[in-house]
């Protein structure tokens, strides 16, 4: 106990230096936690619901740009293990500000409300299903644009040569809040008027299977069914579909990890420097401690302990700070709905804390060993 107090006393002797080192470690750990959260969020885990495992997305094997004929819907519905099928068509658009993209998804109105984690007031859902030009809007977008139920809005198309004019009939709350939903039938009418060629087609279909266990085999059955058709398909779980987008970015994970490694290296340099300065200034008292009977092991512990104390303080400020920061500031709004969530998970916090611990030990090694090795006679002789 007295030993711990000695460590803390030592740490607080040069308050300014300890404070600066602690803050340096804290900002670096804040950055580290943010980078890891960026990677975990790119995997889209927090956007998934329990039912995600039962959702399959089927699209043209060529790419999302080449749509599938609407006739596939009935064939898909007959595949054993499939509960329900809906068209799934993106309509890239914008509202008032062309620079802020908005996504509309055209689907089968009966598909809405099948996921209990997409919370929709039942009477609103009923009204959505009763109106061909109805829209369901995520709560966060309702707030962002100040919309209300019953309001008629015009969303300008940025790929299709038409606008989607609809009435907001319902709102929903869910992990993913980036898309507005409308009826596929309404979208198809608009397409038929503007580009008759493109009518009766959907970018993709989404199927709800009986259980997560059968999903992979259902996917295989579907793709096998269309192998020799004019439009072969690729079916994958909702999760893999989302992962596919991060894969498109290329080796982002590697790039971010490289930055994180650089940050770790920088922290080690900073703490090593601090501990070396401390050891250099205290050469004489270390010699005195040794004269009093402290063993080299004690001296090592003393230095390593001080480094740990500084890192621990930095970790609390940096890691805790990151958690609080991303709770308080709404990333969804700051990035114009591009990043929907930025949850600093417990796992990330734990990993960062362990890393801080390891870095503290590593950076105290060289100074601590140097301190342990100093010879009493030489040091004390030098003091004048």
């Amino acid at each position, binding site marked *: 106990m007295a030993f711990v107090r000695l460590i803390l006393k030592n740490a607080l002797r040069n308050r300014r230096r300890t404070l600066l080192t602690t803050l*340096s470690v804290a900002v670096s750990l804040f950055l580290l936690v943010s980078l890891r959260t960026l990677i975990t969020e790119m995997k889209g885990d927090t956007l998934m619901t329990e039912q995600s495992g039962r959702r399959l997305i089927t699209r043209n094997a*060529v790419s999302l740009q080449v749509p599938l004929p609407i006739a596939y819907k009935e064939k898909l519905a007959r595949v054993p293990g499939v509960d329900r099928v809906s068209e799934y068509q993106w309509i890239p658009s914008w509202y008032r500000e062309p620079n802020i993209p908005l996504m509309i998804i055209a689907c089968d109105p009966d598909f809405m409300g099948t996921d209990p984690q997409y919370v929709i007031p039942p009477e609103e859902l009923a009204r959505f299903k009763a109106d061909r030009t109805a829209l369901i809007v995520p709560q966060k977008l309702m707030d962002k644009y100040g919309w209300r139920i019953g309001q008629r809005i015009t969303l300008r198309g940025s790929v299709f040569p038409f606008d989607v004019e609809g009435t907001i009939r319902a709102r929903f709350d869910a992990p993913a809040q980036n898309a507005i939903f409308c009826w596929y039938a309404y979208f198809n009418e608009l397409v038929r008027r503007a580009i008759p060629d493109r009518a009766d087609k959907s970018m993709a279909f989404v199927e709800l299977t009986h259980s997560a266990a059968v999903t992979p085999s259902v996917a295989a059955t579907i793709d096998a069914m269309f192998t020799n058709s004019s439009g072969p398909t690729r079916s994958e779980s909702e999760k893999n579909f989302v992962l596919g987008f991060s*894969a*498109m970015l*290329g080796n982002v994970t590697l790039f971010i990890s490289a930055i994180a490694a650089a940050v770790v*290296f*920088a922290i080690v340099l*900073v703490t090593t420097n601090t501990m070396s300065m401390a050891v250099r200034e205290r050469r004489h008292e270390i010699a005195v401690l040794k004269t009093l009977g402290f063993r080299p092991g004690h001296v090592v512990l003393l230095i390593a302990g001080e480094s740990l104390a500084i890192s621990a303080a930095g970790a609390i400020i940096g890691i805790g700070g990151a958690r609080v920061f991303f709770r308080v500031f709404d990333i969804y709004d700051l990035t114009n709905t591009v990043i929907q969530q930025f949850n600093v998970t417990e796992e990330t916090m734990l990993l960062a804390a362990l890393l801080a611990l390891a870095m503290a030990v590593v950076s105290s090694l060289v100074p601590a060993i140097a301190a342990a090795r100093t010879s009493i006679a030489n040091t004390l002789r030098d003091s004048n």
Partner: protein
Amino acid sequence: MLIPLKYNIRNLAVRRAATLLTAFGIAVSVAVFVAVMALVEGMDETFVATGDARNIITLRRGAISETGSIIDVGAPLVVRNFPGIEAISAERLVYVSTPRLSGTGSSNVVIRGLGDTGRALRPQVRLVRGRWYRPGARELTVSRSIASRFRDCALGDEFPTGSVRWKVVGLFDAGNTAYSSEMWTDPDGPATAFSRRAWSDIVVRATDKAAIAPLLHLLDTEPRIDVDARTEIDYFAEQTKASSPVRILGNVVAVIMAVGSAFAAMNTMYAAVGSRTREIAVLRALGFSGRAVALSFLSEAVLLSVVGGVIGGLAALPLNGLATGTTNWFTFSEMNFAFAITPSLLARGILFAIAMGTVGGVLPAMRASRLSAAAAMRAL
């Protein structure tokens, strides 16, 4: 009178370990900054290198990219008769989800359907192996860098898209332009293979610079077609926005790391001041002013940071020219580019280091200047 800089250089050399540790800390921040910004520069350079001042790109009104544009089949017949046109090329673009050779998933690679005129409008693109595709034969001539990074698109390969198979008959080199991320075929290729009859864009070459403005106006106002026209330069300049998420990431990371490094530099400089109390007292006794002492310590901090900046820039330098690819969210398709470490980027890196050194050095320098000779001597 100023204290000679040599004094600072010698001090940094004497306190070698602390100097290096601090300089390395600054170097790491600079290296990360330069590396991330080299990616941004590389992407931007690609876009800038692609545009031709006399070419006009015509997209559907409101569309932001060639792949996201749908133009009526009859539109080229209307545009063809406009005055001031030297050449016109209607093109179809379809992106194809293609697996990478590295096994790290798939990306969308563009197949561009264009005729002889279209090729003539892009003199940057030249055939390096094999031959150009023949119309109607389901043949592809592929960018060399795509062929080396994606599956089934090397010379002689069969490239499958859905139920259709294409033969890769040639490779082209498009230098540092956006075309180096594409595969080319005749305009009817995408129409029959993907049942896509509409055009994606109409590229128009003006007879001369003076013809551009009237042509843009005609294209924008012609009631029979619903298009937005802009020069290629403007089109690709707009796409440099594709790099802005990386730019934001780079700036945020750099600023946070810089704060950490500045604190560390501050520590080192405070320690330098602390351990040189006697020297400072002597300097003051010799008649150097407090301001000269402050300036001396500040320049020592800056010197330290310049060393860090140079090391950081050198550490990032091997990345220069490294080819990589990512998805351009405007076109929703792959874009190849190379990290570009330009002299101006290196200069920015060193300025960034100097900023860290200055922030870290100001307070310790002020402290040094406030030590009075008598008090400093007494403290010993």
